[in-house]
């Protein structure tokens, strides 16, 4: 058991060790400084030429957002087309059908917003073409979108006054060519050599050793799984995601895939410091994120390794931990590690079924998504964190007797208004959605009986988790929830859209407004934001604001379930 603990410590440690140089590299690439990857410049220039883009044209924050939204709409149309006609398009060896319009809509939206909530099962719901040019394409470009928006904010925070904040396409293309593609290639190759399929052959029928007839689904999985993990996308090739023995065959792939979840989000947090040439700022952000993350992670590992207390009296030897919904080859510790890392980062891929986690572990997973800023999704996690920084800067600025300022820019009513709206969104979406669903369920429990796979408090947790996952653009689920109904498709779809774009628009707008303000050089009276003290303040703000809003809901779900064991 202690080797399992060492194993997850090694995964986490390796991620941090890789994230630091990657952070430096990201800063270099986005600043446009010389780096070893400059041999890719001709490829990028080719892309700009083909697309008629002038990479030297700088954009205002409004133009950035306009560009971002325009291209997103195009991708949506493209994805809809692929999913609706996949049955008649090539690369469909298993003869899977086209999607219905509403399911195509749901899937397109879900992948467009980098959420990857799946209301289909990969083996039967998609063709290989859809997996590649629909799903995998969106997994690349939506991750790059988040990163590009994040770099716009980086740029806006530099110590000067400016209206022009670089070219969106440049940030976007570089995110793909310099970061996502190379890393995906490395991970994809590792997966292939560990046994993950990369084939265009269809599923294989066979007779098992003891004589049963079965078939094994396959496909061009390795390439897609790599970007799924790296881009905090999470939508798996197979139905059960990385719990599937072909999607995640060994502990080595598990380490690599797990590491890939947090790698870029961690590196981006550090890159903030390197980009602004204030490395301490990056370490502060990283420190707050890590402390908060560990607050969720440590108890979860402990709980999952100590088994399900509800089974305590049944005569089961639980020295291996709680294994319902978990894979033997991965073990309870590595599954607990993944469960929290995937939820704090809005990745949403799973290597164990979250519905079967012990109650408080489930709560920690939800808290990771409710706060949605501990590392967070690629790019967007830092944007969420940025909103908390604004609130923290505001309150602590007042506390030291100065008009609050962030890196030399004054925070005023307009910025506060935007930050408040974005901060409000999360509780509104999660609590509002769950309240409506709970109300519907209570008003007609027989009609909606198929919704909840589990009764009581856990059933409530399933609904709460679903909206939390949607609002965090996470995509993981308490999968017992019968969510392929019009109600869940429509309501989560709306939540997805609002929760993707407002938290991008808001922080970019704030940063854009700040960038246009006069830069005030630091003095002894300025509150430095790259200190441990300010980090403590941000920590305080996130936990008080983000977590407390959900306390009553969590009390009725996981907490009630937990305390009821053996009561």
């Amino acid at each position: 058991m202690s080797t399992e603990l060492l194993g997850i410590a090694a995964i986490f440690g390796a991620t941090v060790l890789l994230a630091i140089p990657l952070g430096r590299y990201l800063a270099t690439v986005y600043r446009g400084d010389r780096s070893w990857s400059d041999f890719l410049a001709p490829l990028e220039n080719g892309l700009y030429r083909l697309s008629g883009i002038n990479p030297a044209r700088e954009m205002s924050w409004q133009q950035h957002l306009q560009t971002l939204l325009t291209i997103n709409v195009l991708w949506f149309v493209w994805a809809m087309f692929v999913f609706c006609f996949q049955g008649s398009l090539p690369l469909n060896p298993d003869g899977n059908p086209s999607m219905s319009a509403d399911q195509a809509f749901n899937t397109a939206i879900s992948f467009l917003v980098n959420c990857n909530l799946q209301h289909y099962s990969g083996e039967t719901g998609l063709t290989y073409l859809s997996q590649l040019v629909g799903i995998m394409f969106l997994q690349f470009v939506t991750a790059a979108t988040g990163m590009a928006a994040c770099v716009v904010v980086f740029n806006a925070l530099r110590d000067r006054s400016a209206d022009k904040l670089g070219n969106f396409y440049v940030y976007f293309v570089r995110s793909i060519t310099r970061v996502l593609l190379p890393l995906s290639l490395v991970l994809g190759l590792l997966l292939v050599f560990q046994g993950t399929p990369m084939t265009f052959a269809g599923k294989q029928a066979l007779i098992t050793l003891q004589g049963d007839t079965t078939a094994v689904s396959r496909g061009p999985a390795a390439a897609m799984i790599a970007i799924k993990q790296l881009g905090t996308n999470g939508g798996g090739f197979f139905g059960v995601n990385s719990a599937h023995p072909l999607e995640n065959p060994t502990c080595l792939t598990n380490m690599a895939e797990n590491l890939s979840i947090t790698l870029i989000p961690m590196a981006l947090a550090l890159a903030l410091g390197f980009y602004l040439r204030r490395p301490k700022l990056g370490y502060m952000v990283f420190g707050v994120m890590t402390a908060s993350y560990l607050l969720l992670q440590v108890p979860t590992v402990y709980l999952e390794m100590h088994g399900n207390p509800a089974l305590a009296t049944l005569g089961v030897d639980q020295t291996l931990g709680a294994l319902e919904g978990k894979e033997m080859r991965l073990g309870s510790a590595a599954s607990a590690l993944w469960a929290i890392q995937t939820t704090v980062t809005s990745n949403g891929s799973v290597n164990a079924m979250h519905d079967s986690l012990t109650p408080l572990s489930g709560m920690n997973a939800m808290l990771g998504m409710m706060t949605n800023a501990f590392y967070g999704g690629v790019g967007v996690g830092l944007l969420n964190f940025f909103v908390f920084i604004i609130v923290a800067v505001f309150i602590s600025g007042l506390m030291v007797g100065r008009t609050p300022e962030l890196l030399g820019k004054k925070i005023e009513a307009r910025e506060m208004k935007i930050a408040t709206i974005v901060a409000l969104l999360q509780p509104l979406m999660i609590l509002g959605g769950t309240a409506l669903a709970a109300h519907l369920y209570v008003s007609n429990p027989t009609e909606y009986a198929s919704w909840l796979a589990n009764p009581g408090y856990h059933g409530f947790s399933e609904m709460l988790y679903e909206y939390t996952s949607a609002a965090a653009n996470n995509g993981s689920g308490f999968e017992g929830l019968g969510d392929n109904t019009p109600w869940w498709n429509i309501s989560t779809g709306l939540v997805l859209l609002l929760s993707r774009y407002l938290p991008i628009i808001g922080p970019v707008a704030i940063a854009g407004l700040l960038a246009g303000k006069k830069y005030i050089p630091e003095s002894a009276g300025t509150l430095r934001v790259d200190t441990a003290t300010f980090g403590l303040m941000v920590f305080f703000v996130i936990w008080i604001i983000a977590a407390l809003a959900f306390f009553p809901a969590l009390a009725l779900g996981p907490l009630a379930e937990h305390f009821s064991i053996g009561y």
Partner: protein
Amino acid sequence: MKNNIASAFRLTLALLVLCCGAYPALVWGAAQVAPGQGQGVQVSHKGRVVGFEDVGQKFDRPEYFSSRPSAVDYRADGSGGSNKGPTNPEYVAEVGTRVAAFLRLNPSVKPGQVPVEMVTASGSGLDPHISPAGAYAQVERVARLRGLPAARVKALVDAHVQEPIFVLLGPVTVNVLQLNLALDTLTEK
């Protein structure tokens, strides 16, 4: 704005070629020299493909080492967990039934020592592994039903215990398919 749309459209096309053409082609090319040529590593017995090394299969005949319970009955063209909540009374009762069944099948195992993976469903429903404890608990039964000395079967299990990669990544496991395959080979000799 019009320019914007045109650029976005052309960039989308270019990236489709790069990300969905060139990149998967590279991975696919590499797969051709990987174990299983990217088709998945297959396992044959007597010249017949009986399964994939990494994909678990159902063993409910008592002369085989059993696999873990599966929510999808090991149908590998799908996958899935039970999604049972930890305190769901129905679920707790089900585990109780499985514990009783396991004890009945393996009378040598004392209550309280039933390995957890043998009575809980895996996440994928296709878990190919059990723990060494889970295998050893079944040795007595399998040996009896196959008419083999228990020590031989135990030695077979010993030989199939897989230590974690780098000593620390993951738990110690036994691949049920390979164990049963070896068992069949041993019996047939």
